[in-house]
């Protein structure tokens, strides 16, 4: 599903990722971890094509990022749900419109959108915030809205960047449960986190990064 081969990403004079090679099969549930600045977010950005590798090649769902036509990028992205570390919610849209946007971009009809958005909001426990604007939400609530937006389109790949950074233990457990359900239905999941509690004793695959290097690929 996702294949990195000798991928390097250098920002100005800063090497965020250095010769990273790994592969992820369809339906896998993988954690990416490492200290602050290790390159976790950069890795996810490369997958959802917000960044381009300086060296090496990346294959996503059969596409080679080297040869991918620019006009194909939106369609590839529609198969990828992303929980951004900084949320990236639109401040001037309600919770409903923020989530619905992911579906409107895909050309869904308003009726189907309505049902799906309500389901996603129920899943993250925030149906009562449907008509609020992001500014009126607590940090954890915003994070859960971001998660709802990422899963509402039923993507084939879900990327989550620190999805529980603003959530208490109970809420975090709830979110992880949702991720596992989605994964059970066949979605490939990558979670970047510094929170070792999330993967400790789960037996799931963990990629350890440090200063841009992939230092370990083991079971949590």
């Amino acid at each position: 599903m996702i294949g990195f081969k000798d991928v390097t990403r250098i920002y100005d004079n800063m090497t965020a990722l250095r010769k990273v090679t790994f592969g992820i099969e369809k339906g896998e549930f993988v954690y990416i971890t490492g200290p602050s600045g290790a390159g976790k977010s950069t890795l996810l950005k490369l997958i959802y094509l917000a960044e381009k590798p300086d060296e090496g090649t990346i294959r996503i769902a059969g596409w080679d990022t080297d040869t991918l036509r620019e006009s194909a990028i939106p369609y590839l992205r529609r198969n990828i749900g992303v929980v951004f570390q900084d949320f990236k919610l639109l401040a001037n849209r309600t919770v409903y419109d923020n989530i619905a946007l992911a579906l409107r971009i895909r050309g869904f009809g308003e009726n189907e959108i309505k049902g799906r958005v309500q389901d996603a909001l129920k899943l993250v426990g925030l149906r009562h915030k449907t008509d609020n604007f992001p500014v009126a939400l607590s940090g954890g609530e915003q994070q859960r809205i971001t998660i709802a937006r990422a899963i509402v389109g039923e993507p084939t790949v879900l990327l989550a960047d620190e999805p529980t950074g603003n959530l208490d233990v109970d809420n975090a457990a709830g979110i992880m449960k949702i991720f596992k359900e989605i994964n059970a239905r066949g979605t490939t999941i990558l979670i970047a986190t510094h929170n070792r509690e999330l993967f400790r004793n789960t037996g799931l695959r963990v990629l350890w990064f440090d200063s841009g290097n992939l230092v370990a690929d083991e079971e949590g």
Partner: protein
Amino acid sequence: MIYSIKLALKSLWFEKWIHMLTVVTIGVGLFVLGLIFFSLYNIEGITSRLPERFSVMVFLSEGTGNREINQLKARLSEDPIVERIKYISKDDALVELRTSLKDAAYILEGLDENPLFPSIEIRLKKNSFDRTRVEGLINELKGLRSVNDVVYGEDLLGTIYTIRNGVKTISAGVILLFSMAIIFVCYSTVKILFYRRKEEIEIFKLLGATKAFIRLPFLIEGGTLGFLGGLLGGAGTYILYRFINGLVISDFPMLGVMHLPLGLVAALPAGGAILGIIGSTIALGRLRF
């Protein structure tokens, strides 16, 4: 598509305050352009009406017979550049002189007999006003035995041309200048709009929106703003036109009534919409993923 329109309208409404200012700005710009076209239209109108009022006086030689006069009249009536002719007899001429001297007419009281010549006044056609042809006619007339002298406003003729050319030169400059100014205003307005939405566009892209999906609301928004601005500008132009016309009628009847072509008023909103869309397109530039 429907969603794009909704999005655009929502955004217009959501930030209605800022957009009102934008509309006013564009409106003022288009109003100025409307005003300029209005002025040009009327200046053109007035200068092109001038030649109509301009006439050539043909003074006939003393003792020219009626037959000769009639021949000349026929010849002139046929000429394509002549609008109409008017024969002025010796007596008519004296009456006219007396009238034009007004209070000083007493200076004619010492006259024993009428010293004036009969003459033909030629009014030239408005449309076929062409300097070389007018001069050709005048030279032909001067060559005739029955014609004593031809008096025509050579100076006036030249002045009209100079004015018309001057107006055209200034027009070109002013229109160019203001079109550029308006495009600048539209561009800057939309660019600002775009800057304010930079983050939004970034998010749209990351969620998998196509370029068309991102662009459409902006184009609709820019077009709508331009259109509303144009309506405002058109309304302003119309109101000023009524105001000026009122003034002209009451205070300067000699200028005649100004004209505001309705097409111009209608063209402003349309032009505004087009300028808005052009401005939006330029401001959006080349989107990259």
